[in-house]
Each structure stands twice: as structure tokens, then as C-alpha cells.
């Protein structure tokens, strides 16, 4: 590469100047940055709300807020984290930035639609935030909006569901864009089975986004119609069926949990071979297991409803299907570990984050099986065991994968390198804080600590205190990580094109890449993870 002439996409001078050069840009890399800064801001807000809940729970009874405030805060925390952070997170940031590059394309198929998705995302997010400040008070239904309570509560449910509806559209359009991009824009000579595995996982995710999201859209519209016009879909007083709401909601929201985790698995699958300098083990198995997860993931939603009065037959059937979906997830874990076996491992921060991911994801996944079996789930449903389960998967999984990806691709995105010591410190603080925060919740969950409660019996206090301490450590880890990265983005050392000796296409480009990504046609390898 001839670097005297190289102009990176960050310095590229287009039609517009200043902030307009960003918010009117259709370059997939700039859009990725737009998403990243927005999502980072929302994440911090969500995290602070989480900390507030932790301080409330440090002692039984009222400590820093009233019960209704607590209801509002856990709802808002859930809406922000689920709909505005983890569902868009990996696809919108790293997917946008690296999907075209990894398959050797100059951009996504529909760059303008891509920018439009970001505007929808911001508009939906603004509405969600606005719902907090209206006179009727923040919604207090939990992020799941269960009927019939959500059809009767006086809080701003309509605004919040409209927000989720619009955010859903943003997600659908991103999915559509990625599907078409993978089908049409692969570099000449790159077949499906020559693609790296992060694109594979994005492709599977995109199908879920496209097919599942409309269901929640319609469900939320039905809810709004019921509130506004008194149509009896869900409220039994009007002849409706509240369990129907749960069916419709989870037909989307279970697949949605795979929207969160599949790209995370993809990121980890990129990182592990690089830091082991070894071909990924079982390429095809990993690629196809992404599709299998996407497919079977559509059929297991009923495991959220074991205690809601569903028929006996439906319960055992959903339990069976839930156990089946664990198989492809386990395949991936075995493949990552086999890839590490006898590799020349290099413990860089990104790799440490990936290891933390595997550990935390396994705890999350295995406790998922406890929940998948009807008998045990009935014991722990709606306790803090559930809270621990999904935080292990979503934060320990998706969250840590995001941090891993950030440390892996940071030099490529900014052309600068961060400080390793500080990064290692943040991995450790995040990991220790995380486990201290959520593991005790498993224990008191089994003992009967309900979730979404503002008060509790004194015998649970020991665990709540540990959790709050863990929360503070976790938050410190976050601050150190963010400080480290912001500092590096501004004044870090210049990063080389391929600091980790990676083998996929992004590492053939200068850091940061030029606006068109590939000035010459990329060389496509038979196996993208070939280190010879």
C-alpha cells in the first residue's frame, strides 16, 4: 500500500464539512461511528440507572427512592439496554464497519437506507427518552410490556411502545441491507463458504431481524389500539386473552436474544484464531450452527411462559425445543476451545475479553438449560435467578464481545493504539465486578428473591450488598476502559496496518481504511483463516 497518497475515511473531504460530514455521510464506516457514539451514550445512561437500582437494593425498605420510581427505573433501564444498546449494538457498529470490508465490498448494498436506519434509530431513541419525562410518568411495566397491566396503567406506555416500534423498523432495514449485501456484494471469487465467520453470523442475524421484528411491531400496535380504542385483544375484561400477548411478544423477543448473541459469537470467532495464529477449527460447523441457531431460535419462545397458564402439551414441547437450541451454541464453544488447542496464544487485551466471554457465556447458557426444563423453571421463574441468567448472557456475552471487538478492531478503526496495561486492568475489573454483581443473584434467586421488587427480606441482604459492591467495581472498570480508549483515539501511538497479524481482509488495508476500502481488488483466500 502506498501510504503517501493514502487518505483515510476519517480525513476524507466530501461535499460537507464539520458535523454535517458525519450526519449526512452514507459511508458505512462513518455510519458505524455514528451508531457507536450514540449507543455508548445510551449505554452509560442505562448503566447509571442500573447503579441507582443497586443502591436502592443495598438495604431492605426504602433507601434512595420511592417504589414507583423504582418501577420506572427498571423499565427504562430495560428499554434502553435491550432496544437501544444490545439489539442494534454489534450489527450496527461492527457489522456496518466490517461486513463490507470482510467480504471485499466498497459499501453495503443500500448506503442511503443505511443512513436512514440511523435516523430512525435516533428518532425512536429520542421518543423512548421522552417517555421518561412526560407528566403521566415513566412507563412501569418492565421492558416486556405484559398485558393486561400495560393496557390499563396510567403511565406513558404508548410513547414507549411507539419508540420500540420505530426502533424495530431501524433494525428491520439494517437486516435487509445486510442480507442483500451478503448476497450481492461479495468480492469476485468469494463463495459463501469463503466468507469469514463474522459475516456468516451477521447474515443469520439479519434474517432474524427481518422476520421476527415485524411481529413485535404488530403486537405493540395491537397494544396501542387496545389502549386507545378499547379493542379487546388482550384484556380479559374486554374478551381478550393476556396469554396471547405473551405469545406474540416472545415470538419476537426470544429470536431477539439471538439478534444480540449471534454477532457476539461472530466477533469472538474472528478474535480467537488471530490470537492463536491458527486456522479456526470446524469452519463449516460454526457457519452452519449460526443458521441453525437462527432457525431453531424461532421455535422456543414458549419457555418464557411456563407459568402463565399455557397448556401442558405446549410446555413439554417448548422444553424439548429449548434443549435442541442449546446444541448449536455448544458446538461453537467446543470449536473455539479446539481452535486454541496447541495454538501459539498471545494474551492481548482483546483475547482476554474473548476468554471472559466464553466463561461468562457458558454460565449463562448452562443456567439457561436449568430454565429450559419446566420443573426447575417453575421454582425460579420471576426470581433474581432470571436476572442473573440473562445478564450473564447479555452483558457477559454480548457486552464482553463488544468490548473484545472494540479492542480488536480499535487500531483499524482509529489508526491508533491504546495502552495495554490499562486495558488489562479494565478487563480484570470488569470481570471481577461482573461476577460479584451477578453471581449472588443466582443464589438468592433459588432461595426465592423475586425480581423487579423494590423491597426484600433481610436474609437476602448479604447478597445484595455483594452485588452493589460488584456493581461499583464494574463501573470503575468501565470508566477506565472508556478513558483508555478515548485517550488513545486522541493521542495514541500510530497503529500499523496489521498489529495482530490477522489473516482476514480488513488487515490487508491501511489503518484506518480509505473511503472506498479497496483501492485494488482484494485477494480472496480459499480459507479466510489461513496463517501460512
Amino acid at each position, binding site marked *: 500500500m502506498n501510504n503517501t497518497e493514502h487518505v483515510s475515511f476519517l480525513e476524507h473531504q466530501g461535499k460537507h464539512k464539520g458535523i454535517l460530514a458525519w450526519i449526512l455521510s452514507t459511508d458505512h464506516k462513518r455510519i458505524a461511528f455514528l451508531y457507536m457514539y450514540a449507543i455508548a451514550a445510551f449505554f452509560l445512561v442505562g448503566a447509571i440507572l442500573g447503579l441507582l437500582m443497586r443502591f436502592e437494593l443495598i438495604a431492605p425498605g426504602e433507601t434512595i427512592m420511592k417504589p414507583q420510581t423504582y418501577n420506572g427505573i427498571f423499565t427504562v433501564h430495560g428499554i434502553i439496554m435491550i432496544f437501544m444498546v444490545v439489539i442494534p449494538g454489534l450489527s450496527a457498529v461492527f457489522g456496518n464497519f466490517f461486513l463490507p470490508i470482510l467480504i471485499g465490498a466498497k459499501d453495503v448494498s443500500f448506503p442511503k437506507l443505511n443512513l436512514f436506519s440511523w435516523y430512525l434509530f435516533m428518532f425512536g431513541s429520542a421518543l423512548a427518552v421522552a417517555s421518561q419525562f412526560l407528566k403521566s410518568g415513566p412507563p412501569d411495566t418492565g421492558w416486556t410490556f405484559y398485558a393486561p397491566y400495560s393496557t390499563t396503567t396510567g403511565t406513558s406506555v404508548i410513547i414507549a411502545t411507539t419508540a420500540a416500534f420505530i426502533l424495530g423498523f431501524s433494525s428491520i432495514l439494517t437486516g435487509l441491507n445486510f442480507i442483500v449485501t451478503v448476497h450481492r456484494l461479495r468480492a469476485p471469487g468469494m463463495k459463501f463458504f469463503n466468507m469469514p465467520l463474522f459475516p456468516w453470523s451477521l447474515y443469520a442475524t439479519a434474517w432474524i431481524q427481518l422476520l421476527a421484528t415485524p411481529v413485535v411491531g404488530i403486537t405493540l400496535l395491537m397494544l396501542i389500539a387496545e389502549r386507545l380504542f378499547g379493542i379487546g385483544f388482550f384484556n380479559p375484561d374486554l374478551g381478550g386473552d393476556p396469554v396471547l400477548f405473551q405469545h406474540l411478544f416472545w415470538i419476537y423477543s426470544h429470536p431477539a436474544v439471538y439478534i444480540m448473541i449471534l454477532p457476539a459469537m461472530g466477533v469472538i470467532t474472528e478474535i480467537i484464531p488471530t490470537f492463536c495464529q491458527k486456522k479456526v477449527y470446524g469452519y463449516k460447523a460454526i457457519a452452519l450452527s449460526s443458521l441453525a441457531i437462527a432457525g431453531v431460535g424461532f421455535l422456543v419462545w414458549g419457555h418464557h411462559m411456563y407459568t402463565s397458564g399455557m*397448556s401442558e402439551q*405446549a410446555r413439554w414441547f417448548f422444553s424439548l425445543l429449548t434443549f435442541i437450541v442449546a446444541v448449536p451454541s455448544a458446538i461453537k464453544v467446543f470449536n473455539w476451545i479446539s481452535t486454541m488447542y496447541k495454538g501459539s496464544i498471545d494474551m492481548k487485551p482483546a483475547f482476554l475479553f474473548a476468554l471472559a466471554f466464553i466463561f461468562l457465556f457458558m454460565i449463562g447458557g448452562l443456567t439457561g438449560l436449568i430454565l429450559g426444563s419446566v420443573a426447575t423453571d417453575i421454582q425460579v421463574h420471576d426470581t433474581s435467578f432470571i436476572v442473573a441468567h440473562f445478564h450473564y448472557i447479555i452483558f457477559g456475552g454480548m457486552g464482553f464481545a463488544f468490548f473484545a471487538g472494540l479492542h480488536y478492531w480499535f487500531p483499524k478503526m482509529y489508526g491508533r493504539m491504546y495502552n495495554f496495561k490499562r486495558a488489562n486492568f479494565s478487563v480484570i475489573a470488569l470481570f471481577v465486578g461482573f461476577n460479584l454483581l451477578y453471581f449472588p443473584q443466582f443464589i438468592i434467586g433459588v432461595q426465592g428473591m423475586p425480581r423487579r421488587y423494590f423491597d426484600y427480606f433481610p436474609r437476602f441482604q448479604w447478597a445484595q450488598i455483594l452485588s452493589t459492591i460488584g456493581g461499583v467495581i464494574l463501573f470503575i472498570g468501565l470508566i477506565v476502559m472508556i478513558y483508555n480508549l478515548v485517550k488513545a483515539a486522541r493521542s495514541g501511538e500510530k497503529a500499523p496496518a496489521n498489529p495482530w497479524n490477522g489473516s482476514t481482509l480488513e488487515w490487508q488495508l491501511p489503518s484506518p481504511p480509505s473511503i472506498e476500502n479497496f483501492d485494488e481488488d482484494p485477494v480472496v483466500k480459499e480459507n479466510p483463516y489461513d496463517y501460512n
Partner: protein
Amino acid sequence: MSNNSPHITDYKVLAKVLLVLMFLTFVTIEITSIDLAAFTVTIALLVAGIKSFLVLSYFMHLKYENLLLKILVTMVFVLFIIIVLITFIDYSFR
């Protein structure tokens, strides 16, 4: 992909499809006046299924697209049917 020239469907074919669609709409309305208990909905859904098939194949030109696209769209419908069936494992045994 191979077929980049826009396909032109004969107006007569389109008109015939339109007639069939209108007839099927009529069937959907009439079916409600015959008492078939739970089967009313089943038949209404079947008719709606046939209608969407016609719209997709002719009006949206799926009939003239490549095989991969046909398979993908078919899979989506299969998935949808499976989801509805599974939901009824709950409703029919309650």
C-alpha cells in the same frame, strides 16, 4: 442475477390473476355466513394463503426469479406456518 432484463408479463395474465383474486375475496366473505365452527378461520387463512401466493408469483414477479430466491421466500412461509401450528399446541389443549 442472471436475468437482468425486466420481465414483462402479458396484461391478459395479470387481468386473469386479478379476477381470481377478486373471486377469492368473495369466497372469504361468503364463508362467514356458513357455520363451520373452528374451520371458518382455517379456510379463511387458506384462501388468504392462496391469494398471497398469486400476488407474490405474478404481481411481484417471483415466478420469474432464480431458484435461490424462491427457496428463501418459501422457507419464510414454512417458518410462519410452523410458528402458527406451535401456537395452537397451546390453544387447542387448554
